[in-house]
């Protein structure tokens, strides 16, 4: 950007606005927004959060639901593998820790897997049933 501004703060503000605008255009390609089909499947309880950090199927999925979940799971696996490498943990450990937070973040009506393997539906105002180790994932260190 070569627009001249009298003050440096103005120039920086314009440049960061431009960066944000470009980022917003690139949103779907970077996976920064949920696929609407994924949103719909999640809200309908056709996919749910597994304890191992991936999406599972509380009921037998249609081909479309399976496609949506597979796409999300492949992305998640890639992310877990990258982050586990930098954080010096196994992929499973990273995925499990992520699952702790994801299950906590489920909206009421969405499905998640309890530690005993059964599917539960998240209700408002009630903490989800999680592995006891997940408490450690809630406290942000530092």
């Amino acid at each position, binding site marked *: 950007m070569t627009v001249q501004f009298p003050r440096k703060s103005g120039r920086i503000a314009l440049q960061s606005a431009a960066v944000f605008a470009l980022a917003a255009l690139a949103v779907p390609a970077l996976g920064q927004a949920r696929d609407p089909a994924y949103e719909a499947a999640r809200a309908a309880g056709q996919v749910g959060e597994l*304890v*191992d950090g991936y999406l599972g199927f509380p009921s037998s999925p249609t081909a479309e639901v399976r496609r949506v979940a597979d796409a999300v799971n492949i992305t998640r696996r890639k992310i877990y593998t990258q982050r586990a490498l930098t*954080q010096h943990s196994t992929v499973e450990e990273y995925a*499990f820790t992520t699952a702790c*937070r994801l299950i906590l973040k489920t909206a009421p009506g969405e499905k998640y897997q309890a*530690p005993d393997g059964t599917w539960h539906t998240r209700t408002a105002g009630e903490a989800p049933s999680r592995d006891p*180790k997940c408490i450690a994932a*809630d406290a942000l260190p530092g």
Partner: protein
Amino acid sequence: MNSFELTYRALAAKTGPMQGSSVHIAAGKRRSQRRRVTAAMMAMGSALAIGGCVSVSAPDKPIVIELNINIKQDVVYRLAGDVAKTIDDNPGAF
């Protein structure tokens, strides 16, 4: 403890550490082995007698194997910060 001592606990309790004779122990072992074989034969026989076709059917719910039991809590704690950031950075995947 060997299986003879497990089977004949009272005798093992009364016998001192180096005092059981090997013949004695061997005989006991043979006895308990014979008993094991007899028990097995009886179980098989009764199964056949009951009319024994066993049908194996898969459960209709998927079998869930918990793989997370070996993950330590301090690892979860250590990763918590980075996990929170990762979820925020990649909303499309989560």
